[in-house]
């Protein structure tokens, strides 16, 4: 489903990586590893189409993502290391607004259910600026609960989460893979994700 061929990334005058390629099919998980500065985030942004590779090609369902453009983005859910939540809005408003702007319909009940799962029920009407770092991360992750788009690209999703939340998120990703979804993620901590097929890709040596 998702194929990358011979990707090269240049930042400034430094070549971060070259010749990177992989193939990911339905229900598979790709663990992206590498030291700090190896280009993990750069590669994820390339896979989303936010930046263009210096050379090489990325294909989704056999077609170049540049050509697919809107159709590819309709299949993609990206969670960057920034939370993409508004401090002035409440968790509930954030969740509803981000779903609408992504072109999805999310009912208020579904949103409340998602917030309950991330343990933020009771705080859904509190502006996000009063939440802790971990709780803000949970608001961002609540998007994933009702997310049914097939390709998830997650940049360090486990950062700032406590042990319970890490286990919960691993479960959510596992369920997504079970439904036939694909996931690409980076993490520095060892996490056990229940997946049929886990691929590893190490950037830099």
């Amino acid at each position, binding site marked *: 489903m998702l194929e990358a061929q011979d990707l090269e990334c240049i930042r400034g005058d430094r070549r971060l990586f070259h010749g990177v390629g992989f193939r990911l099919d339905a229900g598979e998980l790709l663990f992206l590893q590498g030291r700090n500065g190896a280009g993990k985030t750069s590669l994820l942004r390339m896979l*989303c189409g*936010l930046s263009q590779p210096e050379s090489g090609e990325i294909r989704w369902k056999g077609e170049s993502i540049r050509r697919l453009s809107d159709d590819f983005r309709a299949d993609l859910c990206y969670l960057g290391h920034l939370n993409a939540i*508004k401090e*002035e809005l409440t968790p509930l408003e954030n969740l509803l607004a*981000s779903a*609408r*702007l*992504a072109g999805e319909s999310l009912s208020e009940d579904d949103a409340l259910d998602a917030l309950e799962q991330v343990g933020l029920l009771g705080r859904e009407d509190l502006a996000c600026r009063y939440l802790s770092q971990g709780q803000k991360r949970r608001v961002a992750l609540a998007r994933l609960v009702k997310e049914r788009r097939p390709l998830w690209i997650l940049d360090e999703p486990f950062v700032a989460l406590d042990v319970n939340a890490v286990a919960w998120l691993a479960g959510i990703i596992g369920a997504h893979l079970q439904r036939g979804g694909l996931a690409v993620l980076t993490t520095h901590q060892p996490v056990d994700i229940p997946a049929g097929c886990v691929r590893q890709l190490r950037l830099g040596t």
Partner: protein
Amino acid sequence: MLGIVTHTIARDLRLALRRPADLASVLFFFIIVASLFPLGIGPELELLRQLAPGVLWVGALLATMLSLPRLFADDHRDGTLEQLALSPNPLGLMVLGKVIAHWLVSGLPLALLAPVLGLQFDLAPDALWVLTLSILLGTPALSGIGAIGAGLTLGLRGGGVLLSLLVLPLYIPVLIFGAGAVDATVSGLGPGAHLSLLAALTVGGVAFAPWAAAVALKIALE
């Protein structure tokens, strides 16, 4: 398609209402700038009447400028802009929503405030009316053109100054026809032609600028 525009407007308006200080600073800037001139020049009514259109329009222009850097900067900082760019909806439509929301919290209140400030310059009632109308018609173009500048300077150090240098020259036609409309009323020529040209600039600005701004944003995100 229209849904995404209204959703963006609704979100941005809600955010603006949660941060009333931003809106207030723009309005107070306009009030102060427009009030300094009568104080500095003194009670020479003939001179004030002549200066009024230009001064009030430059004040509105600078007040709009003041609020531009925040148009995309907050969304850029917290990662929302990436999410907007990755949405299957065209980014241009979301920028259009942001431009409209920006106008609703800057151009519209400025236009409503303008006749009150115009009184300080001893403008006649019909000139006050045309002043309001011209600012109402012209400010959407300012928000649209400003969005291009805000997109181009996004994430740059000292972007605020660069933004003014980029955008202010592009504001000149709006300023000329806006102030010209009030001048024409005062001199008895009638503002029709100026207002039509102003409306044309706004239609052009609002229709095309969001797409140019969207391209600028995609470059800024790379």
